[in-house]
Structure formats: C-alpha cells, structure tokens
C-alpha cells in the first residue's frame, strides 16, 4: 500500500513537468549532458540496486575500453538496406538500396562467411550492410534487417505497371 502511494506522488510530479514543457514549446535549447541521468540496464544487478546516475558517469561509462581502438578513424560509414536475391555455396547476392529517394539499387556479391551470423541465409531475407571505409581499408558488418529494412522498397513492380496497355509487348510484325 505504501508503495502505491509513492507511485501516485511520482506520477503527479511528472504531470506537472509535462505542463511546464508544453508552455515552452519553442524552446531553442538542446538536451545537454548536464540534464541527462541514466539508468544502466546493461547490468541487471545495477538496475535493481542503483538509482539515477549523474551525467558525468553517462559519458565516462559509455566509452570504457575505447582506448584500444583510438587510432581507428573511418572516412565514412554507410548503413545500406539490402535484400538477398540469390545464394550459393560461396557467395550471397544482395540487392542494395543505395538511394531511397531516387530508388537506385546496386547488385552486390559478398562472401557467404559475412552472413553466417544470420539465423538463415535465404532468398528474400532482408539485411542491413554497414560499410566503413578509410584509405586502404573497408570494413563490412552484416545485420539481420528484420524490423529495420522495409521490404516494400524492393518491390518496384509498380514501376512496370505504368507500361500496361502501352503495347510495348506487341510483336514487331510491321516495319
């Protein structure tokens, strides 16, 4: 019972904050690190025992162990949506969506070893291909595309539908 009373008080205070935020709709300030308090869910024990951490720990803890790759700087990173269109024993063939707006695709082939982290390597499976490039080096990570990659992007059948009735498929019997 005591617990529910505490919860109720908390909810009221949250609601008050909400009202204040609504008033300030044109707030030009950004969320600064000073205002961020974090609950670390990476460790179940911490989650149960600790309350909100201070913002200083937010950044410190985020990058623990980062020093070992200090020199690894990449010129650019691209996260490309793709759909597997063919698989053989050695390679996976993927339609890669390079430009969503212009609907530009590129057919790319990758060694199958890159895909062995997927539950199954089958045709029509979507993937997200992360490519990082710097002079002399390219790094490729493949992630399952479930929930991220939109399969409808790869269904461009509607492009051909506009040609229906245009008689382009008529036999050339008269010249």
């Amino acid at each position, binding site marked *: 019972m005591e617990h529910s009373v505490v919860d109720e008080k908390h909810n009221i205070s949250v609601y008050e904050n*909400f009202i204040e935020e609504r008033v300030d709709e044109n707030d030009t300030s950004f969320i600064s690190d000073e205002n961020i308090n974090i*609950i670390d869910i*990476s460790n179940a024990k911490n989650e149960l025992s600790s309350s909100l951490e201070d913002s200083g720990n937010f950044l410190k803890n985020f990058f623990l162990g980062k020093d070992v790759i200090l020199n690894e700087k990449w010129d650019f*990173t691209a996260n490309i949506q793709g759909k597997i269109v063919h698989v053989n024993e050695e390679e996976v063939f993927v339609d890669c969506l390079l430009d969503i707006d212009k609907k530009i695709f590129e057919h790319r082939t990758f060694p199958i070893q890159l895909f062995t982290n997927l539950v199954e390597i089958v045709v029509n499976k979507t993937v997200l291909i992360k490519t990082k490039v710097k002079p002399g080096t390219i790094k490729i990570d493949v992630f399952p595309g*479930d929930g991220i990659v939109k399969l409808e992007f790869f269904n461009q059948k509607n492009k051909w539908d506009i040609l229906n009735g245009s008689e382009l498929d008529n036999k050339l019997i008269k010249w």
Partner: protein
Amino acid sequence: MDKIVSVFQFEIRYNHILNFSQIARKILSPYVKLAQSIKLENQNTINEQIILNFENDDYVIIVSWDRILIKGQESLDNYIIKNSPIEMPFFSILNKISSLEEFGSIQNILLAVNYIKEIEKTNLSKFMEKTIQETTSNVLDDLTDIAITLERNKKNEKVMLSFGPYSGPLELSNRPLVPVNLKTLSNTNFSGVMLEYKCFKIVNKVTFNDFINMTKESNELFKKVWNTL
C-alpha cells in the same frame, strides 16, 4: 589543419506521446542490434528516454516522448552522405515513430554544431585586436576570456553564432554541449578559435535534405567567421 567538429547535435521535436514508454521498446528493439549498448532514463515513467549508443562510430541516438536526437563528432561530412547514420538509423526510427497512431506532428528542429580550428600563435589579445574595439576590451581589467555572439531572428527560424578564442580541450568539456567521446576526437590540444552554431526552425516536416542544408549553412558561416580572423 582543417576544422574539427568537436560535437554536433540534431534534434527533431514532436508532440508529446503520452504512452511512449509503453510502445518505445517495441519500436526501438530492432535497432538495438546495431548499437553497442543501450541505456534507459526515467524507466517506466511518462518521459522515459532510450539511448542507443553507437560507440564504435562515436554517436548516440536518444529517443524520448517528445523528441529524437542524434549527437556525433569529428566531422559532418560523414553524416551528409547517402545511407549515413542520419538516414539510417536516425530517420528510419523517426519514420517508425511518426507512423504511430499516437503521433501528433513534428513541432520544430534544432541543429547545434561546435567547431574548433587551430590558429598558429594566437591568443586572447590577438583575437580581440581583430574583432572588437580597444575601448570595449578595456571595459574589464585582466580579461581572461571573450566571445562574440551574433543572432538572427526570422519568422519560424532563429540562428545563433558564438565564437571566441580556443585554448585547449578543457574548454570543450566546459561547454553546454560536450563531445561524445573526447578521447577519440582528433588532436584538440592547440590554440585557435571555437565557434558554436545553433539553428532552430519551426517546421512540421523534416527530411534528410533539411539536415544537409543546415549543415551546409553552418559550414559556410564558420568559413565566413574564419575569414575575418
């Protein structure tokens, strides 16, 4: 030495989603596999925030009941190419949120960028010589720091520029917007100039091209300021 973006933050604010904490995890779960770690703030409360940390790429994405933001560093060039982290996963997540029945509309956007660039043999007095009149700089004895702020207010848009001398990485940690990871930034141990750009726009629609255009403007303004020094 080229300019360094010590940090940038791009925010898209929308109407508060009252049941955000109940639906957010389902929306964001597919993206967790791309991140190196996640954190939650205000867990199970009305203003829960989910933080996706892409530490290998030095950026974070924070999603909450009223906004989504991405914060990165080093250079903006990496973020304005096709399929950059802005397009995927940032805008991909936004599109998922905006397709929710509970979603109202986008309210405004904000881009903040902090630049630093080395100027050889520069110091406070040399900066003042080039930027303000002597009578002004003499107002306060033993001056230790200075910044010049320029603002432009238009209908539905506000731009703020603030620049001053830069004396080393300690300054980066003392700004309201601190780098994502100071350790992985290029060498910041030099003297030069620091510029903070902030652009706020009231909009109800935002695309990847809007981000590109705002970054272009910020880069151009930095260049203009640089040419005056």
